[in-house]
């Protein structure tokens, strides 16, 4: 089963994305902020990570930097979910860690395609 960790501070987004992905047959874990994402990853999450960028506390980019420092990106592919059409300066140097990028608002077929594409490369 495809495993997806959704990191977003907006509850309606979390719920809608979780609903769509579970309907698609994914095993979904939710994290409302960057610190919860770090906790899930330290517990050994492996799969696709959908990461919001603009979050209070740790931003999406800061979360990815923290994950990279702890060497926790070895078994995941990170797709950014963001209201920004293009990444800002904070994204400099993140090229090697970000697998895909999905600007909000996105439609569910695009979300599913993005998740299926990434999950297709992961060990089953």
């Amino acid at each position, binding site marked *: 089963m495809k495993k997806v960790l959704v990191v977003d501070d907006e509850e309606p987004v979390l719920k809608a994305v979780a609903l769509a992905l579970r309907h698609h047959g994914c095993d979904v874990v939710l994290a409302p902020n960057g610190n919860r994402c770090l906790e899930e990853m330290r517990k050994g999450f492996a799969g696709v990570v959908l990461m919001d960028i603009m979050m209070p506390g740790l931003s999406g980019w800061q979360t990815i930097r923290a994950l990279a420092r702890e060497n926790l990106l070895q078994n995941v592919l990170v797709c950014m979910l963001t209201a920004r059409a293009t990444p800002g300066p904070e994204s400099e140097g*993140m090229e*090697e860690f*970000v*697998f*895909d990028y999905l600007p909000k608002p996105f439609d569910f077929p695009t979300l599913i395609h993005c998740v299926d594409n990434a999950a297709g490369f992961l060990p089953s």
Partner: protein
Amino acid sequence: MKPVVQADVPSAPNLIIIGGSTGGTRVLSAMLGMLPRLRAAVLIVQHLPKFINNSFAASLCREARTEVRLAQDGDRLEDGSIYVAPSDVHCTVVRNRLIALHPGPKVNYVCPAIDVTMQSVCAPRYGARLIGVLLTGMGRDGAAGMAHLKKLGALTIAQDEASCAVYGMPAEAVQLGCIDYQLPPERIVQLLIREAGVLARPIPAENQAVNN
């Protein structure tokens, strides 16, 4: 003086180098699904974590319905061949004919860097075509490489903004003034077919006896 016989000179094939990063795997899957066997060698440099190198090449193989190989040091670039640069080493081409892999520091924060590959290309000889394609991606990797290819007379194509997940790398190349066309993936494929030409499919082994 003895005339030079063309057949005595090992010629480099038409060469297409495709660079991609964030969002590039989706585009490459779609493009290879539309692409016939080209009269060109195709070298793909897509920023990828190492642990999915093999599954990415295998996935492109399925889409392309032809062999897509993870490049190895010394591999020969030939018409119809498609190679993917492996992670954690830079991938260069030697006299546009051979692949060479080199460990080295990251360039533009990545390894392999598209710039390193494209900047290793030399001017094509004997009329061989040279084409550079730069797909969606964050940052600026590939822009300087595309400018280098343009100076060598290559056809340069960037993915257009509307179809990019991130219009970063293509935008940097456009700003350098080295891009001939900005196109969505399906039109990039059409242009590659037009410029490189298509190889006849080999006769499947099981049909050869019938045809002979």
